């Protein structure tokens, strides 16, 4: 990995791609796509992150262990976000106060 010398040409190419993606994410944000705005913004950010990690940070040429470390870092962050959301998203289902019948209680 540290032996593998990446030619500056690749660096400039990756740099151009990053600039284009920045412009893209800025441009798409101006179009109203409803919920897809957020999804597109996140995918573009993921692609840019992958570019920086693989080429600028040489993970593409690193031993497998470094790749596993990177993936596990993002995986555990995903656990934090996903399992916290199971609480926040499912709160309204059972009546907002965390209990009580989900069906509207007609008090008649």
């Amino acid at each position: 990995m540290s032996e593998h010398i990446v030619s500056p040409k690749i660096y400039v190419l990756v740099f151009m791609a990053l600039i284009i993606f920045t412009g893209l994410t800025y441009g798409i944000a101006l179009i109203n796509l409803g919920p897809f705005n957020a999804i597109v913004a996140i995918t573009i950010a993921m692609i840019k992150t992958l570019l920086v990690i693989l080429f600028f940070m040489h993970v593409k040429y690193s031993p497998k262990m470094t790749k596993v470390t990177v993936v596990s870092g993002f995986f555990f962050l995903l656990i934090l976000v996903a399992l916290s959301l199971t609480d926040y998203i499912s709160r309204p289902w059972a009546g907002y106060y965390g209990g009580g019948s989900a069906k509207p209680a007609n008090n008649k």
Partner: protein
Amino acid sequence: MSDSQTAVHVLKHHFRDMEQQNETSSFGMWVFLVTEIMFFGGLFCAYLIYRILYFDSFAAASSTIDVKWGAINTVVLICSSLTMALAVHAAQLGKRKVLVGFLIATIMLGGVFLGIKAKEYHDKFVEHHVPGPSFHFEVEPEMAEKFHAIDPAKTEIFFSLYFLMTGLHATHMVIGFGLLTWLVIAGSKGKYSPIYYSPVEMVGLYWHFVDIVWIWLFPLLYLISRHH
């Protein structure tokens, strides 16, 4: 100094050879970056949950931030990532002057970034959007028309998270400046050679990580439903 002397002088006593030392230091750096991912991750998780709970207030607050400067800052930081990568490349080939040149370029671009950031903070200060006793959020008519459920108290949460996340990011950049200046000093003394350049690579990894954090901060903080 001939290569073999630098190698002996530089190889730490508890490593078998330079190859093991380099792999160990870069793997150690990556484990540290994982802790940084979780460190920023806690803040991103809080931001995500509050954004889901109070979307309209967050969108309204985000619309008061100038997205032009955010985009320029993103481009500036990507350029600094490029110069950093080329600096690492120069260190690998042992070109001392090119290395120092790119390191200084990276510091310059970082400075530009912080300058723009300071200007954005100043704008927020002028508009009384800094959380705390002086905080006051005025709901403009076109904002109220586009986002119905704006609650000024919740916009203060957005700005608290905005200042915390960008502040933490800026702090990491200042630490980056310290590391880069140390590299410039050591590099100009010719300490780094094609055999021993792992410090340059470590700071490179750190700098690219700081860039990745901004790559995520820009869409999350600046681009909340900018469409008309």
